């Protein structure tokens, strides 16, 4: 089926080839519809869920920001633009997850999520830049045209690895999955939105988007199948141990993401069709289940599965929604989930014969657990006897229970009429991912075959598992025994280590003592210069090039050295100040001898003003402590550093003489100072004309410094403002 593509472009940074290029093809359309469609339900739902919340306005602001960022990700045709939006989703989801900012745990989860996804973003940028270096373009369409060249390139495995890390962190694949359950601290509408349709699907989107560029190689397929396979099994089994409703949903979401990664890795046409269908199936039932969880939490105040039961009599429409969503998740015939599950089995069965059997077993096992998890979340709270304490519960506003009900019903509408979705959305999507037009139609019924048997076995086994597996806190305790090897724990250890390293670093490197800073700066400069000198080759002195030492210079140097000794030996601060100013003046004289009048005059005035400044503040300074006169170890250390520095600089001065002078720059200024800037004093022309911007910023900086001094000294705090 021919699919139409829309393209819009606005200039942003044309010189760097970064533009707002938006392209709407099948894949973008699928995701855009999920983002805006589920997003609309979330907007309606949140209006009652967070009714009267102090920061409702802020919430909607974040949500809109996030929604636009997601749309940007799926519509970008420029990979750098895609990256910008990708980062925006990380940042805006950070705000959303940490929305309850007065809770410590909520802040911590938000930080973990930002840390993991932000790290992924970092790798993504590296991968995208490498990719553009290989192909010489930022445009996804251009990249697709050069796909063969990219796959054959030496750097291909590196690019692949970087992009995989980005996708795996975002889509919570093992071993980066741990941020997702943590992110459940967010208000439920956020969890529903982020984890059913948007945030975590961005990684899947990335993989799908890059399939025509990077896909099809063994590296691509096996990595994705292995990572996706581990994730889907690991998370599906994990979800059964949870007692928190949101925990069950979180792990089943991770598992679903694993299935999607796995299918994209499989990469056959059937697999891609299955992936595209499963994205919609999962978004519909998972969003519904999350919203239902939100209602239960909102009304009963708990999400603990061991305490919830019998709610069907008080929350009947919610129960219907939960039942439909759970059945779609389980893949009951006539539900959209049934078609999704069929397609998955279809894909695994028709994979390479050697591995088809293993893939199918993995898919069946995962799905069995997911069936049970879906029942646990969608049916379990409503069955059984209603506890006394829940009897007074009443149905919430319509705007809360209609969205999940509508989503759950849609799951069955699409299940009964799969043609609508199949022809208008899935087919263009697969076209966009596979690169070639595919001819297929989704059907309700595939006839009696292996797939159907597998589906029914899954359903039966899942239902059985649901009855066998009752939620119990004891199982959580069992799971916790393995916490020490969990990726989450390792990540936390790493971040704790980083924090203590930073603390140590700040305490030793930024201790607030000027003398310690100076020492470190000079030692560092010494190390750099020494390295440069050592690799720079031999040094010799060409005596013929040296000019003779005149009497003035000799006298001047003598004065300078005397002033240095005086400054070092004195026990009076005033003498030390005068000593340093004598050093300054002596250096000015040197400038005069070697015809640098501008420099000399400036240094002269600055030295004068420094002395005046010292005189003004002298009486307010603490008693003079000459650190180097009372501790022999300090003296030795400082003397060593200082003499080394002097020696190195002297050697460099000699070396400068033997390096041929690069006179291009000075020639340029000499030549053009008059013709271009009508000045004869090159120094001044550089200051006010050639490098006028620098001067402008310098005077601004000076002004800020003056304002700082002024306001600090004039600051008069009231007694109540003092700490």
């Amino acid at each position: 089926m021919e699919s139409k593509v829309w393209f819009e472009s606005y200039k942003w940074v044309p010189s760097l080839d970064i533009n707002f290029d938006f392209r709407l093809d099948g894949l973008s359309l699928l995701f855009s519809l999920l983002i805006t469609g589920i997003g609309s339900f979330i907007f309606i739902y949140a209006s009652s869920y967070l009714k009267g919340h102090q920061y409702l306005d802020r919430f909607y602001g974040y949500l809109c920001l996030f929604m636009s960022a997601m749309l940007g990700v799926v519509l970008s045709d420029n990979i750098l633009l895609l990256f910008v939006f990708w980062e925006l989703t990380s940042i805006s989801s950070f705000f959303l997850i940490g929305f309850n900012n007065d809770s410590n745990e909520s802040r911590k989860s938000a930080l973990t999520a930002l840390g993991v996804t932000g790290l992924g973003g970092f790798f993504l940028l590296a991968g995208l830049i490498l990719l553009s270096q290989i192909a010489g373009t930022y445009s996804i369409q251009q990249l697709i045209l050069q796909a063969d060249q990219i796959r054959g390139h030496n750097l291909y495995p590196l690019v692949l690895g970087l992009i995989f890390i980005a996708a795996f962190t975002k889509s919570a694949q093992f071993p980066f999955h741990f941020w997702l359950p943590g992110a459940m601290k967010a208000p439920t509408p956020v969890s529903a939105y982020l984890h059913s349709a948007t945030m975590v699907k961005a990684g899947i989107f990335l993989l799908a988007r890059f399939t025509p560029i990077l896909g099809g190689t063994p590296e691509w397929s096996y990595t994705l199948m292995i990572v996706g396979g581990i994730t889907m099994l690991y998370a599906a089994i994990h979800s059964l141990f949870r007692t928190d409703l949101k925990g069950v949903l979180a792990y089943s979401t991770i598992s679903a993401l694993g299935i999607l990664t796995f299918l994209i890795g499989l990469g056959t046409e059937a697999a891609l069709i299955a992936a595209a269908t499963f994205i919609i199936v999962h978004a519909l039932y998972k969003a519904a289940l999350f919203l239902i969880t939100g209602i239960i939490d909102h009304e009963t105040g708990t999400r603990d599965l061991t305490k919830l039961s019998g709610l069907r009599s008080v929350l009947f429409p919610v129960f219907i929604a939960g039942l439909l969503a759970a059945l779609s998740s389980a893949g009951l015939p006539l539900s959209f989930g049934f078609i999704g599950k069929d397609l998955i089995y279809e894909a695994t069965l028709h994979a390479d014969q050697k591995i088809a059997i293993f893939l199918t077993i993995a898919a069946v096992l995962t799905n069995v657990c997911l069936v049970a998890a879906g029942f646990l979340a969608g049916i379990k709270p409503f069955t059984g006897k209603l506890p006394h304490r829940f009897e007074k519960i009443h149905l919430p506003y319509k705007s809360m229970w209609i969205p999940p009900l509508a989503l759950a019903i849609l799951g069955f509408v699409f299940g009964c009429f799969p043609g609508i979705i199949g022809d208008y959305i899935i087919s263009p999507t697969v076209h966009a991912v596979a690169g070639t037009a595919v001819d297929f139609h989704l059907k309700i019924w595939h006839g009696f075959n292996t797939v159907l048997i597998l589906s029914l076995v899954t359903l039966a086994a899942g239902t059985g598992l649901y009855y066998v597996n009752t939620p119990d806190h004891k199982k959580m305790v069992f799971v916790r025994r393995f916490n020490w090897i969990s990726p989450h724990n390792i990540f936390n250890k790493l971040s704790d280590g980083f924090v203590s390293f930073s603390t140590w670093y700040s305490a030793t490197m930024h201790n607030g003592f000027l003398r310690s800073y100076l020492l470190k700066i000079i030692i560092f400069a010494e190390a750099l210069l020494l390295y440069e000198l050592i690799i720079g080759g031999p040094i010799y002195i060409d005596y013929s090039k040296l000019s003779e030492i005149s009497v003035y210079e000799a006298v001047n140097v003598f004065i300078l050295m005397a002033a240095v000794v005086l400054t070092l030996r004195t026990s009076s601060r005033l003498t030390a100040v005068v000593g340093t100013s004598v050093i300054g003046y002596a250096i000015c004289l040197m400038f005069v001898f070697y015809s640098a009048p501008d420099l000399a005059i400036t240094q002269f005035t600055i030295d004068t003003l420094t002395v005046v400044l010292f005189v003004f503040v002298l009486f307010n300074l603490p008693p003079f402590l000459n650190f180097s006169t009372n501790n022999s170890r300090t003296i030795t250390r400082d003397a060593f550093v200082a003499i080394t520095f002097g020696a190195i600089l002297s050697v460099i001065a000699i070396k400068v003489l033997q390096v041929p002078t690069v006179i291009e720059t000075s020639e340029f200024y000499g030549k053009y100072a008059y013709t271009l800037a009508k000045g004869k004093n090159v120094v001044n022309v550089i200051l006010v004309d050639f490098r006028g911007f620098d001067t402008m910023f310098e005077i601004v900086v000076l002004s800020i410094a003056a304002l700082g001094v002024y306001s600090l000294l004039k600051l008069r705090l009231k007694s109540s403002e003092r700490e």
Partner: protein
Amino acid sequence: MRSTILQTASNYLLPILLLFSIFLLLRGHYYPGGGFVGGLVASIAFVLHSLAYGTDSTMKILRYKPLSLIPAGLIIATLSMFAPVLFGLPVMTGLWIEQPIPVIGMIGSALFFDLGVYLVVIGVVLTILFTISLETN
């Protein structure tokens, strides 16, 4: 600590140093000098006066707070930076009047830029020094 010699000397030195600073400012484009050095020399003139007579009386001579020189200087520098835009030229292009003016010499946007630097430097130095001197006494 009031020294009659210093006071008498600074009476003469203040105008002479100020004149010298303007001289430095104007000649900067051709010979050693310029706005920065000029500004420093002018500041030294006032600082010398304040050492002789006390900061309070120097503030009286100045009439305006030295702080107000900073925005004035920044505005002049910025205007001279953007003046070429009015003539359709890129920012910071040098604009010059063809014929030299008696006494002052060549006039161009760079001179005004330097004047801005001159004022900012005086403002910054005097603000810092006088604030410290007044606050610490």
